[in-house]
């Protein structure tokens, strides 16, 4: 097992493993039914070793899924160790007992055996458009326990020794809306598992078990070492940062997220002990979600090309007390976790402000702003539900301004064409633009937020929105000014404005009111007085900033 492999063969075999993960990713995408996978690619695939260590992830896998797949295998090993068989397929989604991060993400894994010996697992994860619960989409705000958020699937077997367990499948499907689509997507996950297992078997046949196992170990130790080298280049010391989330949509306001980073030699500890306890509203994170966010941040700051595998986790220590907002216990609700993940990234970036001044950015829009419009389409009498997620500002950077109107950090989902929205739903989009003056001033200014104005046509429409950084503005760094907070409001035909809360639900409007969503901008980098003249001129000429704003800050 300790036989060394030359660095050329290792690179080539590693490439083959990534290729297997890629092929599983594409197969899943192609055979899935739902738009969420086909168009938005809200899925990931991976290979782990027999101990559940993540070895390779598909090129386009998502940061938020990073820790969940390994988490699932850990549970398989803990609960089933003597009872894992060739042809088994495990399925789970529960954040509290099965390694998940929120219920719509259904995890699946299949073991790879060679002559009776467990060699590896092939795993994948898919964001399903619905897993039951109180509201369509299983993502609505204001739910105070996980039971309301959808069906909890503990770690169970959907296949036993190659035979499907029909009872389980029927039980799952009955509890989800649009069960045909769910069935199609779950079948796609199964197909991806099987393909992965057969490809790994091919590699074992070609190279032998010993070789493959050695490659696994080499990948982990080299990635860990690569991360450790990046870490050891940081100066030793303690770095802290604190930020507050607006609220949980129920009773808790100003939720504190605090990190203390203790860096010594090649070790690094992220201590979140000072963070608030878990909340009633569904913004809590499980440990895996926090771990994914921390890894994302560190990778983005230190080594964006670092391959995604457990080697990264192994180089990082994270400490969070149980019951914390970032390490919640059952029955905490978690559906809107992505907003909190975004804030964890901001906080980690914040802690590194003085350590990595060339890498950190001003705080980004810090949210995963989402909106749901629903009602009955007056043209055909059918009920409709339209969900969208909106980007915002990206923080100012060392060398340049933050990008305007874009998805940041942990998320990168696209918008839906306006012409598609209007053909599909009784809604009219009246404006899609950048919010003037929303990027914080600075040597390099923060990016602008997005404004979207939507008017229901000929019917009564229900609006629910989830936003963050409506009160706690995205901060600037090194003297950069904060970006403008986000805002939801209604506007009647005379221009009268009614403000809505950042977690709005059950707001009914008609054609008389337009619903306006403004996402937060982002914080600037460096002092406004150091901004180049031509950049200030461009701020003015582009009409992204008003005369008054420019006069005030530059």
């Amino acid at each position, binding site marked *: 097992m300790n036989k060394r492999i030359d660095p050329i063969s290792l690179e*080539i075999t590693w490439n083959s493993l990534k290729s297997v993960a890629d092929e599983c990713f594409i197969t899943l995408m192609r055979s899935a039914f739902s738009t969420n996978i086909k168009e938005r690619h809200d899925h990931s695939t991976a290979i782990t070793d027999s101990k559940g260590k993540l070895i390779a992830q598909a090129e386009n896998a998502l940061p938020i899924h990073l820790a969940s797949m390994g988490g699932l295998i850990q549970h398989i090993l803990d609960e089933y160790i003597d009872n894992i068989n060739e042809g088994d397929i495990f399925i789970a989604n529960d954040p509290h007992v099965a390694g998940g991060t929120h219920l719509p993400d259904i995890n699946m894994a299949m073991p790879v055996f060679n002559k009776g010996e467990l060699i590896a697992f092939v795993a994948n994860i898919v964001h399903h458009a619905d897993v039951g619960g109180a509201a369509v989409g299983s993502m609505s705000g204001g739910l105070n326990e996980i039971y309301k958020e959808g069906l909890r699937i503990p770690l169970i077997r959907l296949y036993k020794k190659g035979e499907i367990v029909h009872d389980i499948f029927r039980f799952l499907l009955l509890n989800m809306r649009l069960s045909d689509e769910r069935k199609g997507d779950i079948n796609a996950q199964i197909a991806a598992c099987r393909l992965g297992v057969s490809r790994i078997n091919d590699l074992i046949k070609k190279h032998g078990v010993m070789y493959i196992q050695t490659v696994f170990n080499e990948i982990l130790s080299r990635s860990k070492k690569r991360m450790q080298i990046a870490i050891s280049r940081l100066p030793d010391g303690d770095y802290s940062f604190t930020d507050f989330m607006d609220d949980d949509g129920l009773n808790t306001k100003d939720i504190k997220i605090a990190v203390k980073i203790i860096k010594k030699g090649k070790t690094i500890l992220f201590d979140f002990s000072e963070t608030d306890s878990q909340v009633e509203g569904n913004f809590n994170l499980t440990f895996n979600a926090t771990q994914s966010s921390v890894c994302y941040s560190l990778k983005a700051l230190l080594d964006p090309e670092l391959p995604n595998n457990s080697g990264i986790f192994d180089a990082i220590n994270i400490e969070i007390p149980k019951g914390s907002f970032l390490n919640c216990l059952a029955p905490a609700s978690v559906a809107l976790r992505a907003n909190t993940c975004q804030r964890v990234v901001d906080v980690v970036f914040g802690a590194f402000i003085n350590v990595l001044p060339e890498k950190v950015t001003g705080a980004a829009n810090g949210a995963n702003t989402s909106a749901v419009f629903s009602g009955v389409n007056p043209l055909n009498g059918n009920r409709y539900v339209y969900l969208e997620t909106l*980007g915002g500002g990206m923080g100012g950077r060392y060398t340049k301004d933050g990008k305007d109107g874009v998805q940041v950090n942990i998320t990168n989902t696209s918008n839906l064409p306006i012409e598609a929205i209007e053909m599909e739903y009784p809604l009219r989009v009246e404006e*899609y633009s950048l919010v003037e003056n929303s990027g914080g001033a600075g040597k390099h200014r923060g990016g602008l937020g997005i404004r979207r104005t939507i008017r229901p046509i000929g019917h009564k429409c229900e609006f629910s929105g989830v936003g963050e950084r409506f009160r706690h503005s995205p901060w600037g760094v090194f003297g950069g000014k904060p970006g403008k907070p986000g805002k939801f409001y209604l506007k009647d035909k005379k221009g009268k404005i009614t403000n809505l809360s950042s977690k709005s639900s059950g707001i009914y409007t008609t054609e008389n009111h337009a619903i306006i969503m403004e996402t937060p901008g982002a914080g600037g980098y460096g002092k406004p007085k150091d901004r180049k003249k031509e950049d200030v001129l461009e701020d003015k000429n582009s009409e992204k900033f008003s005369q008054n704003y420019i006069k005030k800050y530059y």
Partner: protein
Amino acid sequence: MTWIIGVDVGGTFTDFCARNNTNGQTIIHKRPSTPHDPSLAILLGLKELKLKFVSDKKRIARLAHGTTVATNSLLQRKGGNLALITTKGFRDLIEIGRQVRPSIYDLQIDSPSPLIKRRNRLEIDERIDFEGNVIKNISSHGINNLEKKLKKLINIDGIAICLLFSFINPTHEIKLKKALSLRFPHLPISISSEVQPEFREFERFSTTAINAYLQPEVGKYMENLKKGITTNEPNLELNIFQSSGGLTTIERASDFPVRMALSGPAAGVVGASETALSSSFKDIITLDMGGTSTDVCLIQKGKAELANMRDISGFRIRLPMIDINTVGAGGGSIAHLGKDGLLKVGPVSAGAVPGPACYGLGGSKPTVSDANIVLGRLPENLVGGEMKLNKSKAYKAISPIARKLKLSVEETALGIIGIVNSNMTRAIRSVSVERGHDPRHFSLMPFGGAGGLHAIDIANELSIKNILIPNSPGILCAEGLILSNLQESFVKTCRTPIDSNLRSVQKAISELRIKAKNWFANEGKGKGNKSLLLFIDMRYVGQNYELSINVGNTLTKSNLPNKIVLKNLFFEAHKRSYGHFDPLAAIEIVNIRLRAISELDCRPSNISNNKKSPKPFKITQVWFDNKKAKSTKVFERSSLPSGFSLKGPAIIVQEDATTLLPPNCSLKVDKKLNLVLRT
């Protein structure tokens, strides 16, 4: 005697392929490009070429031209200073795009900034709804205001007009275009309902903006070219090659330069598929390996598939284009040690300047070409002896890495080749699987200078049995040009449930057929067959993507196939693309497309077969494994007659390409003088 000429202008060379249309004689010619004015190399080359014609009349009937002018203008951002006019409330739409960023982890990588500055993006108060009803009219006051604002903008040299729902009701765009062309007669105006009248506003706007951006430069180039050529050859028919795989007139190319964005590589694919067909290979994967990147395209049943969307250096274009994928690995890709201590190749490339170390142009970084020369696979004399490669510089470039890896220089070179091949294999596998194909069922066709050096290893990795190497792999683009036909695409969005009355679809087809008939009468006047292919884009209700389905030739009759036939075709396509279909779910029609093809005549190349049995012109030492170099025979490609076969190891050299035949592989020269290699 009449000649047909294909001219492919690349960054370094301008390639010519001339075919005598009476006896099939083929002449090829290569000369350095003239990047400051690419038409210069064409005109000079034509003169040089005519001296090679074995004919006293030397009449050139037509010239087909593939150009990178549009591509380069976009890549180097040398296009026009534009104004954009759009619906009130949406001037940022083209900047926000799909609100995604190109790299998830790298905080420094952004999408390119928009081609049109924000201050130059003007709004007009107007609105059309999703059914084409006018919600808000354009007022003359609004147009006057627009005029005032346009006059205030500095040095505008083009206008793009992009309004919401113009693909259903173009009247507002047309009205604005008319009004503004009266007021600004010298400015070219692109409107989205003409450039690509299809739904999805960002893609349509972006395509239109790129078109307007390219118009000043491409228009100027086309004008120069036309002037230069008609002075010398007044009766010559000049056609330009489009990314969609067909030719168009120079006038249309000037109006719609965005259609030329992939002109160069697409011609290679036409050349490849025709060559493969002539050797009875129908399903092939092309591998066009250049200096910095490699283009891969899947050809099935002799036809390359068209993709309807593509990003070119971060700019989105929605138009039919030959489905070519670019892999960031080529002969100039640089080998280096990664942060994990492993050997990596690319994505950084030494490019043409300074190029690989062995070029002796000042490059010192080890590249794939350096590895090939160290292993004895690449002869030291390249491009007809004009350029000599320096083996010792290649050694010197690779040895620092070899020392760090504690390997010999040859072992390291083998590693570099192994890794670049594994990168390409991974990319080809992804591309094939994504399109629902198993690469094992294809043959591999390498072209470009270095393709033949890597083909066998890549084919082995993909379990591909046969490799076809065309007679002139370096000139395939120019050859593809003379074999191309005139082609024009028409599209209309017409969203209709398939189970409803399809009268509106039928009406849309009739409208498009009238346009197509006009095109045949005025532009598509080839002497050969004509066809008018009808494609229907369909999807399940609720899906966000369509499948474009060919439902047959509609040249003589305009009848839409019945619903059962349409549905079955859709099911079949859905199964092929996504692995399943649902016979009961509701289906809708989204777009109607017509592709008009007017075939031009071109004789097949006559093969002058050399009867002598070939002899190797030298024996060289080539490394195939890390044990020792093997004595390997080197043949001139032109000396190999059809029917000749050979067992590896061997190297086959020709002016613009090198083919490596490892031990235990075999080679046969077929009737068309193409090489068939077997793994």
